[in-house]
Structures are given as C-alpha cells and as structure tokens.
C-alpha cells in the first residue's frame, strides 16, 4: 500500500517534531515553511527547558507536561541542552509568601526541589542578588532553539521526511466534499508557484494558526501574545534563574553561551508578521533582570527581540491563559476533513504536542502505529544538512 502523504505547514518546533513523529511511524511527510527553519516564534523562544515550576500553582496540567517532557528531552537530545538546573529565588517577603503555594504545587506535580539558604545559593551562583531570602533548586535547563529543531528535523529527514523551506502556502485546496486535499504554494527561492497533494494537512503554524485555518474557512481561537527578550553580554550564571513569584514580566534570567537573556513581557497583537521592539519593555527587562542579578546593569546589551507566543483563547488572556496546547480536528469543529491544527503549548512540550497531533493524524488515516519518540534518541542536528 502506498504510504499516506502528510503535509505539515510550518517548520517551527511543533512542525519539526511532528514531522519526526510521523516519519518515525512510517508516513510520507513533507514540511512546508514560508521562512527559514524556526524563523517565527520557535527560534525566538527564551530557551528555558521548564521543570514546570513556573506553572505549578495556576496551571498544573502544563506543569506536569513540562516536568515529564523535560526529562524526556534530556535523554533524547542532550546535544543541545545545558542541563545545569535552575533556581527559584525569593527576593522579598511577598516572594516568600508565594513560596508556600508554590511548594504545594511542586509536590502536586512531582517536581523535585531542594531548598537553599542565601549562603548556599551564593556559593553556587555568586552573581545572584545577595539580598535573596531563600532559593529552591529545580531541574530546569536551557536549550539552543535552532539546534533542537534541527535535531528533530534531521531525524525526520533520516526517516524520509522532506523539508521545503521558503515555501509559502497561498491557498488550501478543498474538494467538493469539503475535504482539504492539498495546498498551493509559492516557492520563494525560485519564485515559482505549484500545487502539492496530501492525504492530510497539519497546520502547525503556532501563532499564525488562525490565518491558515481561515484559508479553509475554519476557526482556531489562538491569541498571538508577544513578549520581549533582552540578551546581555556576560554569562553570570550556569542555571536558569526564576523569580519565585506569580509569573510576571522579566522574572526569568537564562544563561546562553556567553550571555544571559532576560524575559519576558506579555501583550496582545493582531498583526504578528512583524512585532516592533518596545523600548519601555527593554528598560523593564533591565530593571527586573538586575533585581535578580545586579551585574546585568554593568554589561552591554547584546540583542533584543520579540517572540509571539500562541495562546489558546478560552476567555482568559495573557498570563492567566493556560500554556497548554490543543489539537483541533477540523472535521469535528468545522466539518472540514483532512485538516488538523496544532497550536498553543510551549517549547518544552514540543515532543508531546507532536505525539498528540500524530495520534490524531494516524487515527484519522486509520493507521495503528505507536508513538516512539519518547524512547528514540535524535541524531546529530548537523545531519540536517547532510540528508
């Protein structure tokens, strides 16, 4: 029997991971991406491999996903991860107050933690604000955004998946029965237009998922929610440093190569193709970041960027909205067959989003194949260019 052909729109984290998952299950996979690999939200992610601590108070579903996926990614793609752990740092009394609920959340979500006195904290991370009250060590990590996607894509390619970059979807092809049977694309490398046929189309365009769904007349309640990230020119810490407080602006500082990156903010936009940098927010990052690590004030800014999270609309917005993901079978929601949308979620849960999506795709295609991505180590990200 001919292998079913699945086209994935978007080569972000979800697209690359879904390509890997489906290719591993033996399907014929093509990924189309209008830009470069992870040139949208994924590439601009903060790079925090969450342990779930950030969500364990308000959004335990996300928190549990995080700690589980965290441990899986450490095993399957250690080549791009700094597994140095993280700290949740309480700087004032209100942080200490918050820690009670936080500890309960950690227990509930089975996130391991270890309390550290200020002195113990400064011994392992001497550049943290010495006025801290208490800190908890957790299994956070950091990862390289481009390379984690390359590792998934490389492994997908090694199993036969194809990646068509700089190829923009201009139209979804829908037959008389209302089924999506393919798409029309514009190859921006050659400036040529063509049509691709698929047994199933997966819309993995994250914050742009609503726009692609609209092409099929379907509706996806995704709220593009950008935030700012600022990189500073010194690696002050080896661990991910979180402020022990209700998730808010600029409360995470991550090491990356010889930098630290402070993030982030949260606001809503309509046009997400270009988000201008808002200078007040850059200022805010410096304020908030230097509260955790005072030395940030003394080093140069190295880069500033905006990343647009895809939040699932549920009446709640911004920080209150759940950070979990959702997979839409448009047969059920809009009566459109052959078309699935995956959006929401976060970088740490990319593999699980792919698993869920691939399960639905396989179920729709009547294929019985188990997901094997949790046990399958990824090949070297550099092989992305060899295959």
């Amino acid at each position, binding site marked *: 029997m001919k292998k079913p052909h699945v086209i994935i729109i978007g080569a972000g984290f979800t697209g690359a991971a879904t390509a890997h998952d489906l290719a591993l299950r033996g399907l014929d996979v093509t990924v189309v991406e209008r*830009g*470069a*690999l992870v*040139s949208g939200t*994924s*590439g*601009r992610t903060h*790079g925090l491999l969450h342990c779930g601590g950030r969500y364990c108070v308000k959004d335990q579903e996300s928190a549990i996903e995080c700690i589980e996926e965290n441990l899986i990614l450490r095993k399957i793609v*250690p*080549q*791009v*991860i*700094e*597994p*140095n752990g993280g700290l949740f740092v309480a700087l004032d009394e209100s942080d200490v107050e918050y820690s009670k609920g936080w500890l309960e959340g950690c227990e509930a979500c089975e996130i391991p933690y270890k309390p550290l006195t200020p002195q113990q904290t400064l*011994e*392992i*991370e*001497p*550049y943290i604000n010495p006025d801290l009250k208490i800190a908890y060590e957790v299994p956070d990590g950091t990862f*390289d*955004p*481009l*390379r984690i996607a390359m590792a998934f894509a490389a492994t997908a390619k090694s199993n036969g998946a194809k990646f068509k970059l*700089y190829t*923009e979807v201009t139209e979804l092809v829908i037959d008389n029965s209302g089924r999506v049977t393919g798409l029309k694309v514009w190859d*921006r*490398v*050659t*400036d*040529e237009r063509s049509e691709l046929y698929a047994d199933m189309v997966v819309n993995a365009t994250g914050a742009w998922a609503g726009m692609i769904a609209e092409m099929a007349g379907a509706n996806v309640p995704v709220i593009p929610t950008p935030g700012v*990230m600022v*990189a500073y020119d*010194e*690696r*002050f*810490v*080896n661990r991910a440093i979180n402020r022990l407080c209700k998730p808010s602006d600029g409360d995470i500082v991550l*090491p*990356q*190569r*010889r*930098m630290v*990156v402070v993030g982030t903010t949260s606001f809503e936009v309509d046009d997400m*193709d*270009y988000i*201008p*940098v808002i*200078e007040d927010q850059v200022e805010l990052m410096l304020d908030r970041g230097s509260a955790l690590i005072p*030395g940030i004030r003394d080093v140069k800014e*190295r*880069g*500033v*960027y905006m990343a647009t999270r895809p939040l699932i609309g549920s009446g709640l917005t911004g920080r209150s909205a759940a950070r979990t993901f959702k997979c839409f079978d448009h047969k059920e929601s809009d009566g459109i067959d052959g078309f699935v949308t995956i959006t929401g979620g976060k970088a740490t849960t990319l593999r699980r989003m792919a698993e869920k999506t691939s399960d639905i795709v396989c179920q729709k295609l009547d294929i019985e194949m188990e997901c094997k991505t949790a046990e399958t180590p990824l090949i070297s*990200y*550099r*092989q*992305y*260019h*060899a295959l």
Partner: protein
Amino acid sequence: MSNQVWMVTFRIFRKKGNLKPYFEDFQMEVKPGEYLLEAVERIWAFKDRSLTFAHACHHSTCGACGMRVNGKEKLTCITLIKDVVDDDGTVKVEPLRNFPVVSDLVVDMGNLFLNLESVGHHPVISVVEEPYQDGIAAGKGSEADYIRLSDCIECGMCISACPVATTTSTYLGPAALAGAMQASLNPDNGVLKLVDCADGVWRCHSAYECSEVCPSYVEPGRKIMQLRRKVMAERIKSIFRSNN
C-alpha cells in the same frame, strides 16, 4: 536619541532561481539604535514578501543571520544600524561569500556543518573546556560539572571572510579547524591526524580575517595556530615513540 528616525536606503542582493542576481534598493525609516536584522525583517514584512533571509534566535546564539554588510561579515541580529550606515545613508546587504547562494540573502552552509561534524566538534561542553579569557567565569566550585553550549555558533562568517576559502572549497576552514582544536582536548579521537593535511591546518595563510569577523569569541585564527603547534608536537612525540 530614542525618538530619532533616519531614512536609510538598504541595498539588498537579490537572486531567484537561475536568474541573474541584482541589487534592489529599499528606502525605509529606521531608528539608528535598531538592529539590522529588524530592518531586513521589516522589508520582508512590509515591502517585499519575496525576500528570503535566514534568521532564528535574534540574539546571536543560533548563527543563522550572518550576512555581508557593506562588504564585511556581520551577525545582523546584534549589529546596530547606526554602526553600519554609510555617509550617504545606505547600507549594502549581501549573502555570505564562499557558499552557494540559495536565494537572496540565504546561502547553503551544509559543508560547514558537515566539516564541524567530521572533526568531532562538541556542541555542548563543560564550562571549563572553553574558558573565558577575560570577564567573569560563572559559578564557583566544581565548574567542570556545568555544561554549556560551545562558543561556535556555526554562522559561517569566518568562512566568508577567509581568503583561502574563496578558491578552495575543500579547505576545512576556520570554523572546523577551531572545532578540531576543541575536539583535540580528547586525545584519542585522531583529529590531529585528520587536520594534518593540505586541506587542513596547513592551508591557512594567517590573514586572521576569521578572528576579525567572529561574533562569538572563538578566534578561529588563534585556534588554528594552537592546533598547528599541537600537530607538530604530536609528530615529534610520535618519532620518539616509534624509536622505542
């Protein structure tokens, strides 16, 4: 300063398929304190959707957005516009040299990645393996336990700047040789033999342009010289070994 706006002409290299390449001018208002990649992205977003360029992290950790700006290699995500605008208000943006051009500002850096792979460069290392020359080494105590991403971000700018790479596509190149230096910290992997050849460590002609354009503290030129000394020392040692 922050309210200042400059009218800048971006002279962008364009190439589609097998058509002849040309330069296209885009005039745009920018803030001098913006990063160049922002402007390139805005040209795509608001002026010409056919423009192709590679980018991902926007803060110099991924290495995707290296381009030639006024003839010199720059990582555009950390290059301020005010630092590269000519006196007549133009900025010329071209793809990196010494790689096949895919389209517009996108080049195919496959060879670079394969070369880095072939010498066994490690993308993540212990923090003590690539020590800081100056500045602050993070953390204290058992630093060897900490893992960090290696300095090299595989941006290809050193290859673009290298005068040897302009004619010798088989040359391993500065990034891979610096990677080999890192890999040679493990004495048993045979990398010293691998680079001791005409396409390896001896092909360099000490122009040090690689170190000049490297945005990520690798100093490939210096690493090549360190590697040469290591290869020579290894050769001398092996003479004595074979005599025993």
